[in-house]
């Protein structure tokens, strides 16, 4: 192969060729070499290698077009449909643009959906409640996650990687299953009540399932890794000698925590809070499975509007407003990250 280029070979290519004879089979370069025996692969790789510029263009175009087509375009369609009217048809909404006499395009911008979101208290209460539930859950996650992250950085060095893995592992396991696991614990005849009743702590089973409390527990549990990882990263960089110096000078541990440790970890605290708050705001599965009928959250409202009421224009409007609400924390987070990079 490559006979034609034999004499014009550049030194690096020559080196690679010579080393490939004794290169371990199974490595990627060896695999690449073996594949070269197949004409289509050879042509493709030669075509790509031969034309640096067009390959670059091709490389940029593929993922770019994909995202334009399947991320940006769908979103513009949501925006469009949010301005149309509900209709009993297939699909269930009216057209935004209409040809009149084949000359004019008539644009019917229907603002009723947005007006309804503003006027019907159900919707803005759902938005406010989502912010409240996400906010409280974020604080609770900080309260649970901080000691854990702190404990991890105090653990012996050779434990830390394993502990880190243990924090990340639940993130890989199914979200749905982790939420489901709590149903068996929290329900009326569940394991928590069973334990507390047997211990004699309570004599009436607690009602936790299908309340906001269950939703808090679910969110804290599901998003805890997002809180712990940035906290751990910021706490690990801390120099122990600072605390030792403070102790030598007679500073009490609690005071030195607030004076030294917490300020050092503040970036981790903020990052962790954003990483929990943002996904919790639009959460659907947790309020739906653990929350009750009184648990209003906007993700649930959107789902019901779409699947139960089949009001596509209204659910599109709900989605647009939810995104506008999300833009605030997301932009704030981005700004903060950029500032950190500069500092």
């Amino acid at each position, binding site marked *: 192969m490559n006979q034609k280029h034999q004499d014009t070979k550049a030194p690096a290519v020559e080196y690679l060729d010579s080393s490939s004879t004794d290169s371990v089979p199974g490595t990627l370069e060896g695999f690449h070499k073996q594949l070269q025996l197949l004409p289509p692969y050879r042509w493709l790789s030669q075509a790509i290698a031969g034309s640096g510029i067009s390959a670059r263009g091709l490389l940029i175009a593929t993922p770019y077009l994909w995202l334009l087509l399947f991320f940006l375009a769908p979103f513009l369609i949501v925006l469009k449909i949010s301005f149309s009217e509900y209709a009993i048809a297939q699909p269930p909404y009216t057209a935004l643009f209409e040809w009149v006499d084949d000359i004019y395009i008539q644009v019917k911008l229907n603002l009723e959906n947005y007006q309804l979101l503003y006027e019907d208290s159900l919707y803005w209460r759902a938005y406010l409640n989502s912010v409240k539930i996400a906010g409280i859950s974020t604080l609770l996650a900080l309260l649970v996650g901080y000691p854990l992250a702190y404990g991890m950085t105090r653990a012996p060095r050779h434990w830390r990687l394993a502990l880190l893995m243990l924090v990340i592992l639940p993130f890989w396991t199914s979200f*749905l299953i982790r939420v489901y696991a709590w149903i*068996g614990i929290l329900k009326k005849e569940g394991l928590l009540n069973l334990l507390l009743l047997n211990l004699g702590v309570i004599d009436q089973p607690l009602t936790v399932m299908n309340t906001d409390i269950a939703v808090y527990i679910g969110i804290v549990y599901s998003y805890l890794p997002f809180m712990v990882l940035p906290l751990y990263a910021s706490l690990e960089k801390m120099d122990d000698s600072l605390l030792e110096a403070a102790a030598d000078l007679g500073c009490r541990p609690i005071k030195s925590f607030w004076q030294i440790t917490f300020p050092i970890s503040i970036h981790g605290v903020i990052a962790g809070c954003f990483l929990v708050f943002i996904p919790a705001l*639009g959460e659907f599965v947790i309020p739906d499975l653990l929350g009750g009928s009184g648990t209003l959250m906007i993700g649930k409202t959107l789902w019901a509007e779409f699947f139960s009421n089949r009001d596509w224009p209204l659910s599109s409007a709900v*989605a647009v407003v939810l995104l506008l609400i999300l833009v605030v924390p997301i932009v704030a987070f981005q700004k903060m990250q950029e500032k950190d990079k500069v500092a």
Partner: protein
Amino acid sequence: MNKGLSWFTWSALIVGFSFLYLPIILLILFSFNESKLVTVWGGFSTKWYVELFNNQGLMNAAWVTLKVAFVSSTVATLLGTMSGVMLTRFGSFRGRTLFSGMIYAPLVMPEVITGLSLLLMFVAISWDRGFATVTIAHITFSMCYVAVVVQSRLATFDHSIEEAAMDLGCPPGRTFFAITLPIILPAVVSGWLLSFTLSLDDLVIASFTTGPGATTLPMKIYSQVRLGVTPEINAVSTILVGLVAVGVLVASVISRRSEANRLRDERLAVAET
């Protein structure tokens, strides 16, 4: 001061990790429960696993889910790796800001919105929903995760190795396969695994974008969970958790070994000069 662990550290670690793991452990434990009642221990039994494999609906859904996950994670890894390389190595190209925006936005986008928007588009172009549409939806959000993972790996290794190869006349495509790809391979592999588990796990986006005949396992689990806790679902969950745990462990062993190999090679290279 740092002799041994203080009581505070111990209790923080024990409480924190029990909170993270106890629910999963209980779930696994009760999947081996003889009794139909989930909270009453009726002795050890594997009958729910047997029942599970006889449940045709669940098995079909599992098969659909595995197919979707495999195809979508493979395509997503390809597109995501390309995107990661573009973002770190191509300097500024036209529309770069828009592109990086489109890479990061799906990561923070609520699933209900992603699902809704894709569905509305598939309806608008009257594309019948089913296996293909779910797969496309999963590729779209997974490739962004892969891009971020690959990008962070590319950002940490020395660009001058690639420049050296190209200075010596190695064409860019070849440089990528000979130098760049082997170095970022651990990131590519973990990107693939991440996409696979994300796809395996997704309920919301699949519910929006799927059609008749392409019900995924999470959708099946969800509809049963709404009716209550069953030992059968515990058994499915246990299998899924087990698969993921084994996958993550294998991946971490592979990545640690490849890292060790790379360090050894680098040391050898330095010693030879």
